[in-house]
């Protein structure tokens, strides 16, 4: 635990940049939208609002080649090679919701019966610097899903803005080894208390969407798990879904993907893995047209079951929602997760 200056924060970024590809929040120069993407130690902006996109794309790209092959029909010969990306990556200034999301994806891709090799390579050489949310944003409700505003685990280093300086916490041996090359001033228990105060204050600043739902997320989870939700609720939710897939694409924990082979002009074929969404009609449709999940309400039901049921939480070891609120602002309907919780809650009230 150290007390460092803002300039020291930049030094850390600079040092990381030398060994890793640096990813972090930055503001788009034209319109000021915040993204989490490749940055330099000069462009990374820890004061930027919560990034529009979660860091998921760093380890699970929107579109990636996972295999390449060439089949020579005349020689009857097939050459196959997997394509992996194991460049070292540093995620700098990760907010706690996104860090929790990354942990969920880890547990899903790495902690089940089968290990996803493509993901494992992406994740294999990664350094994580988390950033405590001193002020929550309008959309946030991580306090309802136990994933913020401060990161508890999973980071190598954690930063908390104490006003005139930063509190630097070390969360792993890798983080400890990295920080050894610096001569930072140690922090005291006083500083840690100061951080706790800041976090407590941050919690009081959440918007209505979080404060109203706080106790409800767990009650709704109970309902979703046991299935005691009226058909009409799903129908109401389903009617509002225009099947854009945005909720899955912006969700820090959604991992559904599609695989397609595309023939390139050089005669090779690439196997592409792209994001997919359970809200799409074609998602569960089988060749020949039979679709066990045709009605839209069945598909909506599937997503919220995935995010809010105990049985699904088992694979993440926590709820599938991390309270980042992104699904609410990209939804063309009115069925972001907080609203769905509200609809179900209203039903419980009645």
């Amino acid at each position: 635990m150290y007390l460092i200056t803002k300039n020291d924060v930049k030094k850390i970024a600079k040092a990381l940049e030398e060994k890793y590809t640096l990813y972090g929040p930055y503001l788009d120069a034209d319109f000021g939208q915040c993204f989490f993407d490749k940055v330099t130690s000069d462009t990374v902006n820890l004061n930027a609002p919560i990034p529009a996109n979660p860091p998921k794309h760093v380890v699970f790209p929107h579109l990636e080649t996972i295999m390449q092959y060439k089949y020579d029909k005349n020689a009857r010969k097939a050459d196959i090679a997997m394509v992996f990306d194991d460049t070292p990556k540093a995620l700098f200034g990760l907010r706690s919701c996104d860090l929790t999301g990354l942990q969920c994806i880890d547990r899903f891709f790495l902690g089940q019966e089968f290990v996803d090799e493509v993901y494992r390579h992406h994740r294999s050489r990664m350094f994580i610097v988390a950033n405590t949310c001193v002020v929550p944003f309008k959309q946030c409700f991580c306090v309802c899903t136990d994933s913020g505003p401060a990161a508890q685990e999973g980071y190598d280093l954690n930063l908390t803005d104490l006003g005139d300086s930063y509190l630097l916490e070390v969360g792993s041996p890798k983080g400890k080894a990295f920080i050894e090359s610096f001569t930072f001033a140690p922090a005291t228990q006083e500083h840690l208390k100061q951080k706790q105060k800041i976090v407590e204050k941050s919690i009081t600043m959440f918007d209505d969407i979080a404060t109203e739902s706080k106790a409800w997320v767990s009650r709704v989870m109970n309902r979703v798990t046991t299935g005691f939700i009226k058909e009409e609720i799903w129908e109401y939710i389903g009617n509002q879904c225009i099947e854009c897939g945005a909720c899955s694409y912006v969700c820090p924990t959604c991992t559904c993907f599609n695989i397609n082979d595309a023939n390139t002009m050089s005669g090779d074929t690439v196997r592409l893995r792209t994001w997919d969404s359970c809200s799409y009609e074609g998602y569960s449709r089988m060749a020949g047209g039979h679709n066990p999940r045709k009605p839209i309400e069945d598909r909506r039901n599937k997503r919220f079951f995935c995010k809010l049921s105990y049985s699904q939480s088992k694979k993440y070891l926590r709820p599938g929602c991390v309270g980042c609120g992104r699904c609410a602002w990209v939804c063309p309907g009115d069925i972001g997760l907080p609203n769905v919780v509200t609809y179900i809650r209203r039903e419980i009230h009645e």
Partner: protein
Amino acid sequence: MSYMPGVCTFCGTGCGHYLKVSGTSVQGVFPSRVHPVSKGRLCVRGWNIHELLGTHERITRPYVRDSGEVTYRDAIATLVSALSSYKPEEIAFLASPRSSNEDNYALMKLARLVFKTNNISIQAESGHRNSLDVLYKGTGFAGMLGSLEDIRKAEVLIVAGMDITTQNPIIGSELHYAARSGSLLITIDSRMTKIAKLSKKFINIKPGTMRQVFDAIAYYMDTQQWGNTKSAHYEEYKKYLATVPFDAIEKETGVLQSEIAFVAERLAKAKSAAVFFTSGISGLSHDTVASIFNLFVLADKIGKEGCGVNPIAGINNLQGSFDMGCAPDLLTGFQSIDDAVVRKKFEKKWKDQLPASKGKTVEELLSNNSSPLKALVIVDHDDGIVRFSERLKSLPFVAYIGSFTNKVAVYAHVVLPVTTYIETDGTFTNAERRVQLSSQKCNPAFDVLPMWKLIDAIAEAMGKPFNYEHASDVMDEIASLTPAYEGISHKLLSKKHGVQWPCTKDNPGGTKYCVPHNVAFVLPQKPYAAVQVTQEYPYLLMVGKAQHYWHQNNIMHKTFIPLREYNATLLLYPDGYVAIAPEDAKKIGVRDRWPVKVVAQKAEMKAMVMISDDVAPGTAYVPYFIREGIASFLLAYSDIVSQGEEATIPVRIEKV
């Protein structure tokens, strides 16, 4: 730092997005939160546009049929020598509603100035042109009168016969938002669409009776004396309304008089109201658009905030293509080629004479086997044109210009590749007249030219160079010749989410909603032609392409997820289908995906049955498929099919 702002180019909504660009490849997409129209949303197509931009099905080298892959110089030389050997009336240009304004303008100039022909058109002519004609006649503005940004300000919103959440999902989302916050959303349709389910009022009409329903609402409004009687041609319009069979309206259209009265009253008494209807190939007929427009004139909902008569373009630059004069009778900004003063202005700027007489559309020239057409230049077109495959094969010269491989290209003697829209600068005009700049995001992935540059090279080879250094030069020329675009330049548009025309030098901020100097009722051209079923032909066949097959088909085929979602029915019914109600299927004795014969008076076709609750009993629905059997059927009824969404043909359906 690889997310670069841009404009989605699937449909006419013109949503703002960011493309994740690395080198020359696009690896992802993300919505723009601050874009005034899309506000952080995208639809399934928009969310997967990188699949298209990353396709391997690109045209990478110029090609001449007898020589194979050649240099641009040789390909252009072949094109120029072929085209110069024909008379102007034998040459035609098929422009693409997907090209940027700069590209379309350059093509239009090439046709008129260099090859002296007015035979230039886009294929998706009928629907949007009908809308623009009516709006231009009635208000002097050839574009959407309202604004998508204003949807939330309207008290009453009407969606007329459009599956808007499928065609332009983000506009559908805006309507839904408005409805949630208190606007009265009314859907008038013969199918139970998603927007119908989200509406507070759904008025289910018999197919083909949209015009009657709107006239009936106007009739009721007028008899209650709620209407505005001050606009020009009111007296004639009143006479026309007297012919509306109001007493028989339920029998004719399936709509109760009380429902008509409800809409009339709410519409007349609201402070603001807007109507949305589909445009493009399956748009509405001139007279139906006129009926809708006239109702809004009568309700006095023109030229005010939150009001508008809003045709919705399904293709990203459909509006822009008309603005750029890609029509046989139009120069830029809906200026008529017949107008000698306008012609003079262009001749002065272009320093040469222009052909004065109106040209013909490519569709007219192709469908009429005795037309003089000999040489055709096609830009980025989809399989829709393939239904004229016989004629295309017989043409002495066809050239194809485009970025992606395409079934049409096989008919071409010369193929000229061009960049995709992210590899050059260009502007696109969305359905609400918003001109947006899409900046170049990467170098061309292959050694290919942007289209505006290619066109310039062709002009140069003909000895009349346009001398464009940059795409912004093209826009500057457009601005100098087009009053509505007068204030627009790439400089003005940079770092901005576009400007809505009319945008003049004095009004660089553009115009959100059009305020006409004079508003006039637009009188219908034809009497009602109610199609009736007979004992011999007991089903009313609707012809449409809205949901299933549209201009975007060509590009949709190069994606994975949009293809899976939007062309689902195409994948399941690869040879086309006719949709009928479950009870009718029982009557005919067929099950889903069984083959049937659809017989009409003039033609017949084979298709698979699709059983659907969306189709009312007694009606059948066939999408605008380009399969040979269906194509020849539709050609026999091309006069009816050209009416677009309302087209109906009495048929009988036989089990095979």
